Structures are given as C-alpha cells and as structure tokens.
C-alpha cells in the first residue's frame, strides 16, 4: 500500500459521549474502583478520541489494509490535557493521519507505524484533549512491496 498517500488524510468527523455506565465499567476494569472524582478518568484522553473518531476500529483496519486478526498493536501514545474531560458531555472528534512509515526491525521484521492526530472539542469548539496514537502493523515479507 502507498503509505505516503495516507499522510494528511482527514478522518470523518465523529462524536463521543462518555456514559456513566461505560465510565464505571472502565475504572473498574483498570483497577481504580474507588475513583470518585467529578471529571472523567484521565485515561479517557485516549479512549474518547479513539472511540469517537469517524472510523470504527474495523473501518480503520480496512483503511490501512490490515486484517483485524493480524496482530496490530498500540505502539505509542501522546496525550495533552487542555481541559478536564466530563462524563455525559458529547464531544466532537477531528482527526488526521499524521504520519505513516515503513520500518525494518532485526527482531520484528517489516512493520508499518501509522500515527493518528486526534483532537477532542466541546460544543463551544474549545479544545479539550490532543491525542497522538501510533499503531504498529506487522507486515509479512509478501505484503512488503
């Protein structure tokens, strides 16, 4: 696939609202059962943009031409907190492909690194969170060309 052609692609605009039920399930699953703050758990700086981006995860995999069962991994995350994230508020997510490059590792072989630049905005268009998420897509020798 032409990785360079992906760079700059604007993802469809999406929306996301953290429901109280989802928030409760999340904090329990990450072992923060006693979390009792008014604002959402800061892990939602990743989860809200990721879940709210205009692609569902299977559509994203189709977009980068990679099978769901191919062993893609979350490789790097960069989160900037501009404002607290609220439960029950509907946010708008805007995103683009920030970078896409092929690497060759001695141990891992050929793999692609694709970074999404995602931003979470509230209804007054104030920037709440900036999230850069980099995914690792192992490519077989056959698909490397």
């Amino acid at each position, binding site marked *: 696939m032409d990785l360079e052609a992906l760079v700059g692609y604007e993802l469809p605009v999406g929306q996301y609202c953290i429901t109280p039920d989802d928030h409760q399930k999340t904090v329990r699953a990450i072992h923060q059962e006693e979390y009792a703050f008014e604002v959402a758990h800061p*892990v939602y700086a990743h989860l809200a943009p990721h879940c709210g981006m205009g692609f569902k995860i299977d559509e994203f995999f189709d977009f980068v031409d990679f099978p769901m069962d191919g062993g893609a991994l979350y490789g790097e995350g960069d989160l900037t907190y501009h404002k607290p994230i609220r439960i029950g508020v509907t946010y708008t997510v805007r995103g683009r492909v920030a970078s896409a490059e092929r690497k060759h590792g001695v141990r891992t072989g050929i793999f692609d690194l694709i970074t999404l630049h995602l931003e979470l905005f509230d209804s007054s268009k104030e920037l709440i969170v900036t999230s850069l998420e980099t995914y690792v897509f192992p490519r077989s020798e056959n698909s490397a060309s």
Partner: protein
Amino acid sequence: MNTIPSLAVEVQAEDIEVIMDVMEDMNPVHVDEALAHSLGLRGCVNQGPSNLGYVINMLIDWAGFPEAIRHLNVRFHSISCPGDHLEARGVILELFSEGESCLARCSVELVRLLGLVGEGTELILRGTAIVEISDELETMIEVSSVG
C-alpha cells in the same frame, strides 16, 4: 532521588473483555489465545490503554486529583497478558513553574514482575508525564531532596 509510590496490579481476563466492550474493539488477539500464540505473542493481549491506565492511576494516587495530569507520552515495549503481575513506577525528574502552578516532570514505566521477588522485570511501557503538584506535595519533595 524522589520516587512516586508504585502501584501493583494483576491483569484479569474479564477486565480485558470489559474494555473491549467499552471500546467496541473486536480485535480477537485480546481473547483468542491460540491466535495470539500463532502471532508469536505469549498470550492474549491486554489493551494498551489499560496499561496506560495503571500508570495514570499511580499518578492520580500520588498527586491527589485527576486534573493534575497535564501531559503524558508513553512508548509500549511489550504486552501484558492475563495473570501478569505488573507494577507502575515513577521518578520525579524536575520541578518547574507554569504561572501559579508547580509542575513535576516525571519518568514513568510499567513493568511485569517475573516470578518471585528479585527475579527481574520485563518493561511493558516507559515514558514521561507532566503533573501538577500541590503546595503540600511540593514541600514534601523538597524536604526529601534535601534529606
């Protein structure tokens, strides 16, 4: 050296399924052990955001409030799997001011404990965090530095 109190966690398979549900993440590598092994992985893959969450929990417990976290950058070096015993750790690298706030730049990491205590660790993730700290915490850090 000023260390952040560490946080221990054991990865549970049922928690992975909960996060799959919340994230609408249907990647079978999280629940299909045979698939994970066929991909050269040692087991079902706990979600990266959960690993990140454990580190965030450590920072919240230390700073006292979730809004304290201003920035976080992490790189994943390995996966965690059900049954793993993990430990989130952090070290304060420097204190600096931003307006009225005192901020701490910290190195953070999540490691897997291998076997019994003292048998070593495997690095899961490592990165840096910028965290706002209270006046009280700042004083404790400064006292600790002098001591």
